Structure formats: structure tokens, C-alpha cells
């Protein structure tokens, strides 16, 4: 590790022809940290992961993973990382045990340790007694646990999880994150990409990638204080859709409007003024105001704000 950092990224850039997929991205991930990597589809998250896993060469900049340079020593990087892809990538036509034997061979786990590691994976994934089954016979949540456990079969120091909880029910998701906490506590660095902002709240640090640029980086708490200079008002109205349209047309005293379920969030500088304006505006349109209150900005609010700022820049 370099300075206690598992991953160090500086000025990482990837261009495909003229298209800049990843532009000048820099961040660090500490040993044992849970790092969440967010961003809309097509933002370059997968490109960053592929570079960090030694699959793709950067155009500019460099990064070290587990102390090894990704461009100069990709094989050393690969030996020290685990990876769980978005698609389930265990072999469906082999039994779980055969799958584990295969990966044990691939990572050259010493023969004396193989049985122990296999047992560990089975226990951690809660699959005792199911070793002779095939992955396709398992329900979704168990499959994901199996995939995660398999990715740490060879005891890597860092594990990359690419949207590991897609399509998984909330309870299984919860259990899955318990597993991630356990890994982190045992000193394994977890780099996870996700679309779920509630999952992002569980991370030690977050990076938000928006079309190749890292527009936010820090712990969830830091992000809420650093990036949000405005306040969020939650407005409950009798006709939320119309209210949203009306408020959306306003400018000056409010920045962004968005809708969360039946509630409208608006970001404003002056809470008092905004409150008054909302009441007047909605009343004159015959919409009843059921409540206005200031709330703590959620990560989603922050990201929407940041995206808006980015779009305004371009």
C-alpha cells in the first residue's frame, strides 16, 4: 500500500478517438474503506473500473492498485484484486463446488489452503449443503452472495463490485451490505459502483462521475455540507404535478425543482421568501398547500444540484 492507500488515481484519462470517456479523474481509496462510485449510465464508471482492473490502458494519467501500477504491472494488479461483474459470471453448467475448484486453480491457491477457502466461501454465502447444486438453482439473493464470496476466494486485498445488487430484493440487499461491512472490517477494501443512493449513504467515501468528470468526491456528510450552499424545502401540495410545473417555471428565488413521490423539493437561498412565494403562487392557481418544511438534503438532492450545475456550465 502507498501511504495506507489501496487505490491511488491521478489524472486518469481515457479517450476513444476524440471521445473523452474519462477526463482527468483523481481520487484515493484507503485500505479497508468502502468506496462508492456513482454516476448515470454512460458516465464512464465501467471504463474507470476496467482501467483499475488492468483490462484497459489509460490514455493519460496513472493509477496504482494494491501498490502496483495498472499500466506497467497489470498482472500483479490482477493477482491482488477480486472482481464481481454486473452479469453473473460463474458457470451455470457446473456445480458450485466445481466452480470454486476452478477459480482456486486459476488463482493458484496453494493446495493446503483450498479446502479451507472453499469452506469459507460456502459459509459466508450461506450455502452449506448446496455445494453440489448448480448456481441456476439458487434464488437471486443467494446467487449474488455466491458471486461475492467467490470473488474473495483467493483472499485479495481489494474487491471491485460492479452494481452487485441489481435486481435483488431489499432484504437480500441488506444482508449483502452486512457482508460488505464485514469484509471492510477485516481490512479488505471494497470499491462498489451502484445506482442506489441509499447504498451510497453506507459508503465511507463516494465519488460521483458525470460523463467522464468527477464532480463530487468525499464522505456522504462532507458532500452534504460542501456542495450544498442552498436549503431544500419540501412542499406538499394537493395537485403535485401541476404545482411542479408552476414552480418549475419560476426563477430567481429558487434553483431546482424536483419531485419525490408526491412531494416537491425546491432548492432556495432564502427560506422565508421562498415559503411566502410558494404559498402565494399555488393559492393563485387554486392548489392547496398541505405543508412546507425545510429538510436535510439527501444525496439525491445533491447530485441533482451538481448535475444541474454541470449542465449549466456546458
Amino acid at each position: 500500500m502507498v501511504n495506507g492507500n489501496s487505490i491511488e488515481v491521478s489524472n486518469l484519462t481515457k479517450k476513444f478517438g476524440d471521445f473523452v470517456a474519462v477526463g482527468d479523474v483523481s481520487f484515493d481509496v484507503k485500505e479497508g474503506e468502502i468506496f462508492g462510485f456513482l454516476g448515470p449510465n454512460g458516465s464512464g464508471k465501467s471504463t474507470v473500473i476496467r482501467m483499475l482492473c488492468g483490462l484497459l490502458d489509460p490514455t493519460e494519467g496513472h493509477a496504482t492498485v494494491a501498490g502496483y501500477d495498472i499500466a506497467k504491472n497489470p498482472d500483479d494488479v490482477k493477482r491482488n484484486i477480486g472482481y464481481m461483474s454486473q452479469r453473473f459470471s460463474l458457470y451455470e453448467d457446473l456445480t458450485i463446488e466445481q466452480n470454486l475448484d476452478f477459480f482456486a486453480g486459476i488463482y493458484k491457491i496453494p493446495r493446503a489452503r483450498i479446502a479451507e477457502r472453499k469452506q469459507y466461501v460456502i459459509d459466508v454465502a450461506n450455502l452449506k449443503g448446496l455445494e453440489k447444486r448448480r448456481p441456476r438453482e439458487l434464488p437471486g439473493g443467494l446467487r449474488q452472495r455466491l458471486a461475492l464470496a467467490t470473488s474473495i476466494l483467493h483472499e485479495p486485498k481489494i474487491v471491485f463490485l460492479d452494481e452487485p445488487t441489481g435486481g435483488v430484493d431489499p432484504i437480500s440487499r441488506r444482508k449483502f451490505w452486512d457482508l460488505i461491512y464485514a469484509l471492510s472490517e477485516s481490512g479488505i477494501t471494497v470499491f462498489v459502483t451502484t445506482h442506489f443512493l441509499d447504498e451510497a449513504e453506507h459508503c465511507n467515501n463516494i465519488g460521483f462521475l458525470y460523463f467522464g468528470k468527477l464532480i463530487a468526491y468525499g464522505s456522504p456528510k462532507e458532500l452534504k455540507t460542501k456542495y450544498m450552499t442552498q436549503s431544500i424545502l419540501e412542499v406538499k401540495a394537493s395537485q403535485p404535478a401541476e404545482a411542479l410545473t408552476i414552480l418549475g417555471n419560476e426563477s430567481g428565488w429558487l434553483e431546482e425543482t424536483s419531485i419525490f413521490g408526491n412531494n416537491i423539493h425546491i432548492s432556495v437561498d432564502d427560506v422565508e421568501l421562498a415559503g411566502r412565494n410558494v404559498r402565494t403562487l399555488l393559492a393563485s392557481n387554486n392548489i392547496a398547500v398541505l405543508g412546507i418544511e425545510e429538510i436535510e438534503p439527501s444525496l439525491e438532492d445533491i447530485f441533482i444540484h451538481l448535475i444541474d450545475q454541470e449542465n449549466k456550465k456546458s
Partner: protein
Amino acid sequence: MIERIFAIARKEFYQIWRDKRSLGMLAFVPTFTILLFGFALSFDTKHIKLAVADLDQTNQSRQFVQSFLHSEYFDLVTEIPSTVVGQKMIEAGTADVVVVIPVDFSKKMIGGESVDIQALVNGGNSNVATTAANYVGIFAQSYSSLIRTAAMQKIGRAAYIPVDYRPRIWFNPELKSSKYLVPGLMGYVMIISTVLSTALSIVREKERGTIEQMMVSPVSSREFMIGKTVPYFVIACVLATLIIMAGWLLFDIPVKGSIPILALALLFFIIGGLGMGLAISTLASTQESAFFLATFATVLPTQLLSGFIFPIENMPVVLKAITTIVPAKYLLIVLRGILLKGSPITAYWQAFAALVIFAFLTMTLAIRRLKKTV
């Protein structure tokens, strides 16, 4: 490195074993093709349907007719009263050949004059027609020389036949078409199975996404390649051995020449086929396109242009040129040389060398392309 290759090969074996459908195809198709081509299909023309119009009805004419029927080549359908009836039978397809013996057959024979026999042949199938017409000619000639010998003995002269033509067919005396076809079948079956199975195997991993897990692991592309192809190599070797044994036991095809050279030639051919499959797998991203490419590159060229069924010597120049890139052509030359003829390597060393080049070229191409894409 060995450990990784072993892990990959072992997994591949499990998967092949598990995929009973493909396994069945892999075993069944060669067996079926060989049995079919060896036993059922044949270019041998036997049991030609013969109708005879014996207008003479004498001992001599009946003797003449009998000379045709003593072999498997002609089957007498019926005797007919006239040429016209004979023509109708050919048109209806109930007879392939009609032989008409004129009414003055025995009279001319006894009188020492030459007799004209008429043979009507159904030209619809030109292969059969040519052979049938030839057979009629041969039988007539042989009867003719028999009569001539007898006549000469009567007047005290020794039998004298101007040109005594006795063909001796080497390597395949009975002219069994199975001996001609089965070696070609070997090449056909083996190139298809090696190319197809390797190509599909890798593309399947691409399609299912499991190849990504491979790329992220410390497995090198070389280890991956070797591990993936080892099982198919083993299967192809077993297949080749079985086919040679089947050829020997079922079709009387011996191994007259050098067994070590035969083994080497087959080895290079198999390696070349595996390389081809690997190269194709880098071009296709779905199993369907891999199947299409593999089949296109092997089935038609081998069937039509390897000399398997259609002799290359008879082809127009352009096609002959194309046959230089059909690998099965070279295997066939070596196979026919070693199995049927027992020739030494000097007779077919160019073909052998071509096989070595084939193996080398495809493997290099495959490695180079795999490094880029995997």
C-alpha cells in the same frame, strides 16, 4: 502455468460432459456420416435393370444372354417381345438397359459373319449410363472372343486375340467406392468437429459473460487458449483413431504405410483445425455467427473442393487454385498415400509440409488475434 491450464481444461471437460446434446452430436454425426457414406451410398453400379428382346430364341442367343446374367452387374427384369416395348420400359423407368438380339443372331454366328447387337441405355443418370454401356460392351466382347477362340480351335489354329486387355486395379481391386470415400470422410469429419467445437466453446463464454471473469484474473491468453483447446484435441485424437480402426474393420481399409507419419499428419491437421476454430472465435460475438462462420469455412470447401468426392484433377483452373487453401485436400493426399497405397513419404511430402504450415499459420493467427481481443 500448468496448474491454470489444467484448471481450465478440467472445467471444459466438465462442461462438455454436462452438455449431453452437443456430446451426442459430436459422437453421432461422424459415426452416422461414415456408416452412411461407407455402406449406403456408393458410386458402384450394380444390379442394373436389364430387359432382353431375344428375337432369335436359339441356344446361341440364350447363351449370350446368360453371359450377362452371371454377375451382380445386371439383373434380368423380363424378356420382352420387341424394341418398342423395350423403349417404353426405359421411359417408364422399369428398365435401365434393353438389349436387342436380332433374329439372325445364331445363323450369322454359325456362318462366321459378325452380328450387330443393339443396346438401348437410359441416359438420365449419366454415371449409370456410361458404366452400363461399358459393361454391355465388355460382356459382348468377352462373348465374342469366346466364340472366336472356339472357331479357331475348330480349324486347328491356336487362339489369337489381337489385343489382350486385362486391367489390374491397384489399391482398390474391386473398385469399391467406400475405399475412395472413407479417407476423405475422415478429413471432413475431423475438420468440422475441431473447428466448430473450439469456436463455439469460446464464443459461448463471450456470450454468457464468463470470459470477463477470465480477463480480470491473472490467466494469460496463452494459458487460456491451451486450456480451452486441450479437451478438443484429446477428443479429436480419439476420433481419428476410431475412424482409422473403423475403416480397417468395416471397410477393409488397411494402413499400408508408416503409422508414425500418419499420426504426425493427423496431429498437424488437428492442431490446424483447432487454430482455425480459435481464430474464428475472435471474429464472432454470438454462437450463431460462430456456427455460421465455422460451417462456411469447413463444410462446403471440404465437401466440394478437397478431392473427397470430386477429383481435383477434373476441376477448372480457377477452382483448382482455390483448392490450395483447403486443408483437407492435403490430409487426403497423405491419407490415401499411407492407407491405400503404402507409399513412402517421398510421394506426398509436399502435402505433409502443407499440413505443418496449416497448423503453424492458424495457431499464429489465433494467438495474435486473441491477444488483442481477450
